[in-house]
């Protein structure tokens, strides 16, 4: 075993652990990857939180898209996903998603998942936005929680070493190859893990916005960690604003109000009582795609037809009480806690930053552009294009989680060496925080406000440049750790700043409106299908946007 002696006595000597596959992240994709990888060799799963509690899968409410009925077809699911994604999706990845989603839900069912079923013992499905068939499988409105409960049970039986409350700081490299990661354990001691393959499954990062649905772990760590390790990221400007986030009370604003509310028949109204979706998408109405519904709500609010709390109404009072209690129990319970009985009165909602469609560029085997590094789930890009369909993220976690775990597991057992200098560099980086001046929470707050104001639903080059200036300034501030327990927070803040700058730079590179990305300062003559642009891309070595040669 490699023995490491730190340069100063400030840190205990870093432990070095060894494994075949290291999975970073404990949401749906990470746990699925770890379960799969464990079949090929010793697997360690590192979780910033407690496995099963962190990440956004456990908060996902609405459902899991899979073609299960004869009347439906993978071809239609493919078309819906491509159209919903404004044709920016990687078609090969979409094909995999729609083809394998049914198998992966069967895995979950085999492992004990308790989805809602029909009278004929078939998995029940509900309609979701932008889909021509009701193909969203669900467990009430706690579908993600049900999946995580199932996955964590399976993980317990899979022999994976789970390391909870360990914050990954950076990937370790031997030449061009990723050979593991360095992190801080729950006592804020440095920890190095050597691995033949490393899977990034760290989820998204919309906590860089003032109003977000994400859990505490949605800080974009994987984007930043991958970027620093040399991986290429695509379409980082593609941030999904979920149409329906809570607006009250102030501190709970942004909390997800599931699309299932509209799937079950909920309707949107402005303060004048108008069912305004008829002006934006008369055909699909409330079940249009999220980008369209978000812009519609944002427009109603900007033009002053909003509620006292600055939202619009989402109403289910016309639905039978029993349907609300059975299909939307979490919504009912959450709103009751905040003093609103959704059976009796409408909810107030407004858009909230939700999902990152962009991320590390992956192959169908979930290989990133760096050898030894795999990515799956929200940290990977390309599956959802410019706008994700509701219900496709949970399917994504399982389909690509399995693929990443399998590819990482099958990779050759190649003993890379951990470079002592990389650990020294981490020591130096961490030590500097003790001499810092600005609390990370202060910087994070400024960042969130700047991102919400300058890189939100509607964007212009001027605002984006200004936001980038703010990010650059904030990145230059010396961040302060008040004690060891704050070290992780300082590193996470730096990840947030990196992620935010990738989003803003991507938004500047893409001089078109497409899906969730709207540039108000660009007039364009094309629609998504005839766009001259492909993926935007950013890495340490190159930045730009693919142009498509039209036949």
């Amino acid at each position, binding site marked *: 075993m490699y023995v490491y002696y730190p340069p100063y006595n400030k840190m205990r000597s870093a432990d070095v652990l060894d494994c075949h596959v290291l999975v970073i992240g404990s949401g749906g994709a990470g746990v699925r990857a770890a379960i799969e990888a464990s079949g090929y060799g010793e697997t360690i799963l590192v979780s910033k939180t407690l496995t099963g*509690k962190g990440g956004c899968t456990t908060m996902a409410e609405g459902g899991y898209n899979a073609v299960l009925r004869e009347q439906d077809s993978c071809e239609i699911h493919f078309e819906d996903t491509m159209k919903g994604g404004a044709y920016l999706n990687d078609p090969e990845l979409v094909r995999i998603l729609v083809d394998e989603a049914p198998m992966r839900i069967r895995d979950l069912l085999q492992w004990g998942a308790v989805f809602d079923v029909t009278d004929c013992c078939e998995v029940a499905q509900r309609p979701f936005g932008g889909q021509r068939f009701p193909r969203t499988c669900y467990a009430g409105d706690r579908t993600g929680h049900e999946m995580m409960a199932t996955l964590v049970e399976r993980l317990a039986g899979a022999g994976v070493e789970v390391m909870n409350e360990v914050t990954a700081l950076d990937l370790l490299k031997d030449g061009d190859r990723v050979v593991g990661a360095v992190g801080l354990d729950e006592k804020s001691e440095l920890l190095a893990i050597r691995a033949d393959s490393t899977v990034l499954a760290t989820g998204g990062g919309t906590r860089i916005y003032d109003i977000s649905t994400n859990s505490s772990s949605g800080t974009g760590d994987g984007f930043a960690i991958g970027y620093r390790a040399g991986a290429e990221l695509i379409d980082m400007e593609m941030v999904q604003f979920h149409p329906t986030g809570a607006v009250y009370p102030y501190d709970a604003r942004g909390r997800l109000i599931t699309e299932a509310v509209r799937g079950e028949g909920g309707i949107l109204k402005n303060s004048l009582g108008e069912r305004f979706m008829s002006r934006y998408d008369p055909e699909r109405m409330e079940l249009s795609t999220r980008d369209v519904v978000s812009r519609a709500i944002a427009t109603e609010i900007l033009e002053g037809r909003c509620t006292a709390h600055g939202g619009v109404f989402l109403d289910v009072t016309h639905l039978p009480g029993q349907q609300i209690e059975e299909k939307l129990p*979490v919504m009912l319970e959450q709103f009751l*806690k905040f003093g609103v009985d959704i059976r009796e009165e409408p909810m107030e909602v407004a858009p909230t930053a939700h999902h990152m469609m962009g991320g590390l560029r992956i192959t169908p085997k979930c290989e990133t552009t760096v050898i030894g590094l795999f990515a799956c789930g929200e940290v990977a890009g390309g599956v959802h294009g410019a706008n994700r369909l509701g219900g496709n993220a949970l399917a994504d976690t399982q389909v690509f989680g399995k693929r990443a775990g399998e590819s990482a597991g099958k990779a050759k057992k190649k003993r890379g060496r951990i470079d002592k200098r990389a650990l020294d560099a981490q020591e130096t980086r961490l030590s500097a925080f003790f001499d810092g001046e600005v609390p990370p929470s*202060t910087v994070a707050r400024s960042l969130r406000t700047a991102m919400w104001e300058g890189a939100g639903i509607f964007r212009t080059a001027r605002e984006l440049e200004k936001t980038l200036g703010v990010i650059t300034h904030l990145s230059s501030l010396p961040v302060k750790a008040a004690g060891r327990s704050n070290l992780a927070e300082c590193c996470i803040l730096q990840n947030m700043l990196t992620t935010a700058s990738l989003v803003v730079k991507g938004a500047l590179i893409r001089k078109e409106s497409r899906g969730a990305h709207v540039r108000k300062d660009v007039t364009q003559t094309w629609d998504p299908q005839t766009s001259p642009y492909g993926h935007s891309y950013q890495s340490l070595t190159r930045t730009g946007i693919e142009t498509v040669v039209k036949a």
Partner: protein
Amino acid sequence: MKKMNVRVQRFDPGQDEKPHFQTYLVEVNEGARVLHVLHAVHDEIDPTLSYRWCCGSGQCGSCAVRVNGEPVLACMEEARDAMTIEPLKLPVKKDLVVDLEPALDALSHIEPTGSAAMPTREEVELIKPLRSCIGCLACVSVCPAMDVTSFAGPTAMRQDFRLALDPRDTKDRVTEAVSKGLFTCTSCQACWKVCPKDIQIPGKAIEKLRSLANKKGLTLPRHQEVAKMVRETGRSVSRTEPTFMEQVGEVIEPHGPVKATVGFFVGCMYNQRLPQTALDAIEVLRRNGIRVIIPKEQVCCGSPLIRTGQLDFLDTLKRRNIDAFAFRNIDTVLTMCAGCGSTLKHDYRTPFRVMDINELLTRYGIEPPARLPLKATYHDPCHLLRGQGIRDLPRELITQVVNLVEMPSVCCGSGGGVRSGVPEEAAALAEKRREEIEKTGADIVISSCPFCEFHIMEHTDRPVKNVTTLLLEGYREKDRKKAENTV
């Protein structure tokens, strides 16, 4: 924005010998939750404060803490001025962060058949409520049984029953649950009352597992004896002296004008073991204008059978009891046993209203008793406090007679068949009660449940009395003083 003062428990095992409290003045938004107060302390005042949180919307169970002693999810509980925030009663890692992993890791996981055959809709509907557990472990943190005996805890039982219901699981979860301490649960309901997802673990998992255990012949021998006695005598305990019902007529008229007429459901303990307490209660009722009808054909309510999962004979008992009161057109049935009251209210569908004696006396008002120069403490019966939601009413009555010193509301160990089935556990819990009673310095202990009274009597040197006996003593003192004055 509003300002509030909060007290937060701090503890860094690396530096501190023991936990201490720190008070912070924070500014938060209208409608802020406890979590937002913690954020405010961390962001604005002291970044070294450690607390765990994740989803911020009540779905992940990371942030459970105690606010003013009660376990809550920090992200859902509205913040209040002057609140005290402490970690759950679990091993503390730092400040408000407790060790959740041992209990979560100990939960059984499904061992699937390998087929994806789906459970039926009926099975899904049964499993779903048990599945909403978010693993916050508030239940584990309040379970009294886990403190004194080997019990895997409420959520482990929930998980075992969830698996027992699932046709895809291959293991015998019932036998497993028995070996994990299924019969050590006292049915105190503390786990249910603190569950943020309102999962009724004792009633919807533990009693159900016990009834499955019964079908497998795993019911404890002492519980089987109780069931046999109920079947043979209609009573769950033997008599040690003339019973209450042998000593009274069927209708007891009050001393003065009739304020109300009620049927009296006596219960096995007051009828067979503590008849004097029931006679005391009758005296108090007569003095306060309550006409009491006592149908003599009433039998055991069935609670000892339900709690231990022996349901064969239950319907017969229910029918006999309901008929006894319905036949006499009684619209209000009075209980003074907390266990009977909770059972009639929750496990029966009665054509009459059921009222606990504390409810009845406070509803119609009582003649003021004289005060006695005693300091008393009150033991909340589980089936009254959590089973029937009655907390303040007995205190209203008690404080008319004596000064009351509070102690924490924890199970005495007599419920759920534990006193008969696992006596050493029942004794250990009662010993903890004795310690709490001694801390109060009280002269007497008051309660309102025959099981608690009987059980605690064996473990304390202080007199243990029913609320109504205390009232009667207040009346006797009043009469004595009145007699003195007239002499």
